[in-house]
């Protein structure tokens, strides 16, 4: 039997304990406010558009899920719009999450942390900076750009802008940095390092990021139509997206004490790690997802039947989608509703934190969005949604993410207990 050795020993992440989501902020191709984002989810409106951000050069690519209507407003807006997009998106998302949470940040700036996951950081800026250095032979470049090339520049700018003095952390875990960031943030709350943590995931459309996935053979269009439809028969890779998602997290009991509105609760997080080539999401020695899901449910004190839907990490790649479809159907049965938020925003690397936000909105408003343009596929075993489903209530859902190089994370979100 293929199994995860760590899993056999029960070495998954996190113990029990509930964390509340009290604020959310989004910058995405389907909306740059929570209201617009929610509307897009409810109207099944995806963000696919033409690729305008950069010239894909010799490679075939014409489409992207790029953000075209973003404008940073409010304090320092003009100065901030001169910053790189990572920082702009992150600052805007963090501001929105702070506002929604109503947390008295100025009273407790050292008790508030910020954790950012990003797969590619600001790689375009590094390229530009080094190009200038090499081309100009150190005579005509902008040394003041150098501090922005450090990996933590986005998190630092966000902390400076919002005056967040608590722990400030940037995490890299190729394609799974956002979920790692959530895990890290939850641990910060549980170990008492912070009373409130802003946790975000950000990645922007950049030529370097495109080249990376093109080299790995993951961009749609090379072996079939240029589509991004998870689970579909014609899927042949993904179309890139971008954005930033931000959550304001607190211990549920603390949030209740201060009378905050709890949008959803993180009941448990479980991750599996396995040896895997660094450029691949899956390996011959696959993680034992059954053990992982068991652990996730046990930590949340829930049974399989307590799960109402699965928000899959499917990203329109043949191997990933088929693997997770099989994993979900094998464990939860073939009736559990399954959807894939990437059909709305494309493969957004660590902006995949937006998947958690989408799931949170579904819990809050009692609906499930479909996999956009999914025509059905008899090869898939799961109950993959083709239409929006409305419910009286949705109690608990699982959201997953698969990274490159052997990491698979799952988060169990629940409707808050009143």
């Amino acid at each position, binding site marked *: 039997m293929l199994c995860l050795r760590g899993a056999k020993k029960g070495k998954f992440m996190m113990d029990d304990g509930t964390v509340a989501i009290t604020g959310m902020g989004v910058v995405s191709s389907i909306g740059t406010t929570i209201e617009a984002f929610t509307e897009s989810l409810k109207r099944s409106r995806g963000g696919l558009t033409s690729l305008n951000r950069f010239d894909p050069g010799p490679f075939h690519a014409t489409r992207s899920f790029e953000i075209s209507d973003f404008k940073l407003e409010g304090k320092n807006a003009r100065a901030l719009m001169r910053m790189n997009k990572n920082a702009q998106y992150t600052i805007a998302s963090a501001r929105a999450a702070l506002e929604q949470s109503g947390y008295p940040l100025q009273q407790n700036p050292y008790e508030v942390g910020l954790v950012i996951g990003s797969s590619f950081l600001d790689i375009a800026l590094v390229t530009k900076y080094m190009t200038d*250095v090499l081309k100009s032979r150190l005579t005509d470049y902008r040394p003041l750009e150098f501090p922005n090339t*450090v990996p933590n520049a986005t998190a630092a700018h966000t902390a400076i802008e919002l005056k967040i003095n608590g722990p400030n952390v940037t995490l890299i875990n190729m394609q799974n940095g956002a979920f790692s960031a959530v895990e890290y943030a939850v641990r910060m709350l549980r170990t008492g390092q912070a009373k409130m943590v802003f946790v975000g995931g950000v990645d922007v459309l950049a030529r370097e990021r495109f080249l990376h996935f093109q080299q790995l053979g993951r961009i749609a269009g090379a072996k079939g139509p240029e589509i991004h439809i998870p689970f579909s028969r014609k899927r042949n890779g993904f179309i890139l997206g971008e954005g930033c998602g931000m959550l304001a997290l607190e211990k549920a009991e603390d949030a209740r004490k201060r009378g905050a509105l709890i949008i959803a609760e993180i009941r448990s997080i479980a991750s599996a790690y396995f040896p895997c080539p660094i450029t691949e999401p899956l390996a011959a020695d696959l993680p034992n997802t059954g053990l992982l899901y068991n652990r996730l449910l046990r930590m949340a004190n829930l049974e399989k039947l307590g799960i109402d839907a699965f928000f899959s990490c499917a990203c329109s790649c043949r191997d990933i989608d088929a693997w997770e479809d099989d994993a979900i159907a094998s464990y939860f049965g073939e009736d559990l509703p399954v959807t894939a938020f990437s059909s709305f925003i494309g493969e957004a690397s660590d902006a995949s934190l937006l998947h958690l936000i989408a799931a949170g909105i579904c819990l809050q408003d009692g609906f499930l969005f479909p996999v956009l343009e999914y025509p059905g596929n008899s090869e898939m075993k799961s109950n993959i949604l083709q239409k929006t489903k409305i419910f009286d209530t949705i109690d608990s859902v699982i959201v997953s993410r698969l990274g490159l190089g052997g990491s698979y994370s799952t988060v169990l979100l629940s409707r808050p207990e009143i």
Partner: protein
Amino acid sequence: MRRREICVSGMGLITPLGTGCNKFWKNLLAGRSAIRTTDIFKFPVDPDETPLHMAAPLDFQRISGADVTLPEDLYWGDRLLYHAAQQAIEDAGLASLPTDTAVIIGGGASSTLNIEEFEAQLALDIAQDRPLTKVPPGILSSEKILANRFDLYGPKLMVATACSSSSLALGYAYDLIAMGECSCALVGCADTLCQLTHSGFYGLKSIAPDRCKPFDENRRGISIGEAAIVLILEPSEQVRQRRKEAYCRISGYSANCDAQRMTSPDETGEVWLRLMQKGLENASILPQDVGYVCAHGTGTVINDLTESKSIQQLFGTNSTTPPVSSIKGAVGHCMAAAGIFNCAVVALALKHQVLPPNTGLEEKDKQCSITIVTEATKANCNVAIANAFAFGGNNTCVVFERCEKGEVYDG
């Protein structure tokens, strides 16, 4: 929440002052400096402009000689990290790592972007007047490369907070073991000399024209160094069971953020004071019990003055402050590896009960009213802290305690 007692059971050091704990420690205590003029930077500018050519490089050839078992396409930083990890595992007395071992790596400029490889590709594209056509496939993946190499199934993550990356990585690894989520952690960082970092600090006029001199009246900036440092962390009980003497215990850590400017700290020292206070509070240790501070001490005017202010505020002035030293006059500022490098120095100081000198100090800055260690000094030190501060105001302080009677320093 009950936390397990965690210790440093093994270390692997590849440093400008030599490879391996013994060689490095001997050279550090002797007050040697590895900072020198070097021709490894390829900037085609006036060769007499010394700041551009002063650095603390590793002995490349000696290290690469042991590379035969590694894949040819492994990046230089990852190669170093692997060698340091092998050293650390051996030093910890482990035949192999437990399969649930976590691999937590501090990411910096060269280690996260493998920047020299990236630059080589860039230079090629620029020379041929074409846009970038290739991105190295192995970027940002050092922790996964190590986990694969050692066949590990524990958590793996890269923490990237510039010059405090590796000490925050150590803090995270400490949390993972303390909370029972893994039984061992391999935590480390390799940051190598690269043109991005050097050109950046040069442009900001932060590089000293000669050797950096932390806390000196005439200090004029940093010298850049490179290193690969790996520490093995384990529950103390596990180490005792195999009759291995650990270096020291990790008692706690803290992290905070200046949230003011990208490149310079809060000059009142308040943020760093709070950092150290919080670190000691988390470790349940009183300031008066601290016997040594391994300072971030970069050699810039503002950093050293601010750090000494915060130390004064915490401990009092001069005679009441614990001994303080910075290793950057000896090995340069090893960027993302600097934090865990300081942690390794503290571990050695606690084990051997000797405090290392602040190499390069000629005339102490009178405004820095702290006790600077000027030469290797025998001590009776039970608690020591290691500071790391970074661009963006990302700060970390790790608190260590002596866990057993260490070896006696024989000079």
